[in-house]
């Protein structure tokens, strides 16, 4: 076992870590979350119940989780990567079994005191597991075919389970996250070209296996006017609400389309539309800019980090966050089909908020331990 002090000079104490913690970044997250609270307040026609207050409370819990996670030594997270992944996988299986027994689509695991959506947990633990795995490989080793079997299984197993739920949105997010980590670890370009070709070839097969409601979403995306009162309703009403907002919006709590319920799911997946209607182009751009700052900060964390695990975790968190923001906003603007992806930090929802704050905790842990060098070898740490 190696002495870690050889790399860092000394073990960081808790107070040092608290000083190292980037409080400005937390403030940025709080700012974004506050915009969410305001919109939830507006959705409830000027009331903190039922959404805004609970969302704020969750964010508070999320902040505690984030700080706690950030305080934990990055090497411990590295050690816990596989066990956590295993737990998440077990939960996914459990959900599948319960769902099978209960004869219906099941995405939630009720632990009595809290309901957990295992697919959300999986998104974070998949990043940890893949980062842990690629940390141990040199650039040359990454592109060796036999070394790809394990990470492909790491991605493929949960994707398969999630598709069974069926939750296409999460499955795509998991694949995208996996892809980002493969890409950042240095996998050769040709593998991505092969994979892309394979996906194209598989599309007809996948299409034939899709559920009707999933196909409808694609159809509707391609032509929202096809069924303006059915599945196209969401996209059409979302575009109407956004477009009618104009440059400066109709004013806080003055959004007619949202307030009159023309806009569906406005406190969850379509909250960005409401923001766009009430606060206009200006409000939307402000929020997108804040998101972009979060993304650039987390990319910077990745670039500054001196160990591969940290870098991969940071870029994994960053890109997952990006996928969420992009898929959600592009969906409400009618650029992507309707998939059930919330707007991070802003949409109402417990598990998504908590797992995201957990991920930001990991990011912050990477930030705090950015100067830590961790050897590649399997027993290189601890």
């Amino acid at each position, binding site marked *: 076992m190696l002495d870690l002090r050889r790399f860092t000079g000394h073990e960081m104490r808790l107070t040092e870590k608290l000083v190292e913690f980037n409080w400005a970044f937390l403030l940025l997250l709080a700012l974004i979350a506050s915009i969410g609270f305001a919109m939830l307040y507006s959705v409830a026609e000027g009331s903190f119940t039922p959404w805004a207050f609970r969302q704020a409370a969750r964010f508070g819990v999320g902040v505690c989780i984030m700080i706690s996670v950030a305080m934990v030594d990055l090497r411990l997270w590295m050690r816990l990567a596989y066990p956590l992944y295993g737990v998440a996988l077990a939960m996914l299986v459990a959900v599948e079994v319960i769902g099978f027994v209960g004869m219906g689509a099941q995405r939630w695991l009720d632990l009595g005191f809290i309901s957990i959506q295992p697919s959300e947990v999986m998104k974070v633990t998949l990043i940890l597991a893949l980062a842990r795995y690629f940390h141990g490989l*040199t*650039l040359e080793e990454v592109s060796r075919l036999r070394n790809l079997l394990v990470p492909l299984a790491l991605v493929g197993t949960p994707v398969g389970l999630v598709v069974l739920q069926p939750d296409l949105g999460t499955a795509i997010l998991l694949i995208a996250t996996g892809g*980002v980590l493969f*890409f*950042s*670890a*240095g996998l050769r370009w040709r593998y991505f070209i092969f994979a892309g070709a394979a996906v194209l070839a598989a599309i007809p097969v996948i299409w034939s296996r899709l559920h009707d409601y999933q196909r409808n979403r694609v159809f509707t995306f391609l032509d929202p006017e096809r069924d303006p009162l059915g599945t196209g309703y969401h996209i059409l*009403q979302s*575009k*109407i*609400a*956004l*477009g*009618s*907002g*104009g*440059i400066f919006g109709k004013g806080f709590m003055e959004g*007619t*389309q949202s307030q*009159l*319920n*023309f806009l569906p799911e406005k406190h969850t997946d379509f909250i960005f539309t409401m923001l*766009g209607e009430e606060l*206009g*182009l200006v409000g*939307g*751009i402000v929020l*997108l800019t804040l*998101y*972009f700052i979060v*993304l*650039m900060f987390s*990319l910077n964390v*990745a*670039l500054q980090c*001196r160990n*591969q695990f940290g*870098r991969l975790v940071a*870029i994994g968190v*960053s*890109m997952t966050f*990006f996928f969420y923001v*992009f898929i959600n*906003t*592009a969906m409400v*603007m*009618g*650029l992507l089909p309707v998939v059930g992806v919330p707007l991070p930090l802003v949409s109402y929802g417990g598990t998504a908020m908590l797992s995201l704050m957990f991920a930001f905790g990991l990011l912050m842990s990477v930030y705090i331990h950015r*100067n830590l*060098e961790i050897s*590649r070898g399997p027993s290189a740490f601890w």
Partner: protein
Amino acid sequence: MQISGRDSNRYQTFTRRAALLAGVQGVAFIALAGRMYYLQVLKTDQYRMLAEENRVSMRLLAPLRGDVVDRFGRVLASNRQNYRAMLISEQTPDVEETLERLSRIVEIDDFTRKRIMRDIGRSPRFMPVTVAEDLSWDQFAQVNINEPDLAGILPDVGETRDYPYAEEFAHVLGYVAAVSEKDLEEAREEQPLLKLPGFRIGKEGIEKTYDRELRGVPGSSHVEVNAYGRVIRELAKDPGKPGAEVVLTLDLDVQRFAWERLKGESASAVVMDIHSGDIVSLVSAPAYDPNQFNMGYGTAAYKELLESPYLPLMNKSLAGMYPPGSTFKMVVAMAAVEAGIEPSHRVVCPGHYSLGNHVFHCWKKGGHGAVNMHDAIKHSCDVFFYDTAKRIGIDAIAEMAEKFGLGQTYDFEVPGEKAGLVPTPEWKRGAKGEVWHQGETVIAGIGQGYLLATPLQLAVMTARIANGGLDVKPRLTRAIGGELLPVQPPKPVGISDEAIAVAQGGMNGVSNEPGGTAYRSRIPEPGMELAGKTGTAQVRRISRAERLSGVLKNEDLEWRQRDHALFVCFAPYDAPRYALSVVIEHGGSGSGAAAPVARDIMREVLTRNPVRPQAKTPSGNPNSSRAG
């Protein structure tokens, strides 16, 4: 600080690829911003319009239907509160189930159920549809209490048409009823109004004629609705204009009196102002209850109306056509005077009149002896008029009949007016392709044969005799929406004073001289004396065999076979003001059945609307005899 060599190329690759991902993120965000710019700046006007369409919905407000009042402003048709139950189909998971539950409180028959389903089918799902109307207070209270169990049911208070006098005015006012598919097709741009739940339109009578005026102008309410069509708040409201009040020329009291007098018969009566043409009363019996039409007549009750031999749905005063019988004799007498026959000209009546090998009988078996024109009218001698008709010919008679308003319509305000028939040889050639026989001229002399007139026409004829030969036309409406309708001053029909004097004098003889056919039905009160003429229109042919064995009395005949009883009169004789015609179908004789009724009605008219006693003006200057 240094990074080991093998890690450094990992690091470099990572940096390159992370930069690439950052670039992807940047491009994606630019795309998002661009899309927002497109939606919120370039296309904002279009989406703003769509948003308004989403949000603002225009609701029509049914205007309050105008009242119909009599000449003194007493209400004949109005609106009253109507407790009803509406159904909003989108608010119930199962319409059938809701109706089933409601039917425990309010009876809903199959016909209504079908109508409800049809209404639901043709209106948007958030639009209330009338399910049950005219609920009693108890039923309405029960619906309100049980509202939580009656998904989609909305208790509501609306306005509905109300006819306080029902049958008395049924044929004049007509009725309103639910909008039919045909009405909708004809309405075109007014469709939205007609589609309002519970909207009614005029289907008969004044309600139909002045439907547009009574209907008013619909208001509108611009309301903000949510995605489910529920009204959130009102943005702007235009109350519209309530329908105009229609003032009729009728006198409520006279109308009710006449109705009471005719009730039980199949009969009609028309009272008319001889100068202005104002119809004071227009009754047709039996009648129906227009309130029932409003709410939808029960199938059985409606069938009964349709199948009744007394034709309650028919407005007999306008559409009933009868041979005028002896009431036509004044016209023949006037035609004779105009043709140059002296009023003093006498004809001997032996009780029958022969033409070729055909014998025409007088109603009086033994005959009247030698009678002049005055006595012929007074006694209603048939032989005198057989002879006179033959002398002057059918064309002279027809010309005079048309001058006095027969064989034509008057554009009367109540629909359904019939023209009757004044036969001429040309008419017969055209209609039947046969030549005219002289015998037909002879029977036309006593108002039989092809001649047909409506009670309204008989009233007009009498009015024109009474006013000295002015072509007064009947009218039923005094004012609409506070504006008096102009009265066209009548023009002379072109007849000599002498002829008028013969007709008026003859009618005076009928009523006021002992021996006149209606002497028993005179009005003895000074200043109210009426001058009339009886008429008994034969419905069946009396065969030669029957005549020999003794003509059956009317009372012994089946109702359908009995003679129609007619009476026309005007009063007061000294200063004529009102003309009246009464027709009692199969009532027997004019003197026995119709004259007493006419006398009573005329006395009622004069009692309620006294005419200032004035010197008699035989020339009939219309203005000299007008009561203030």
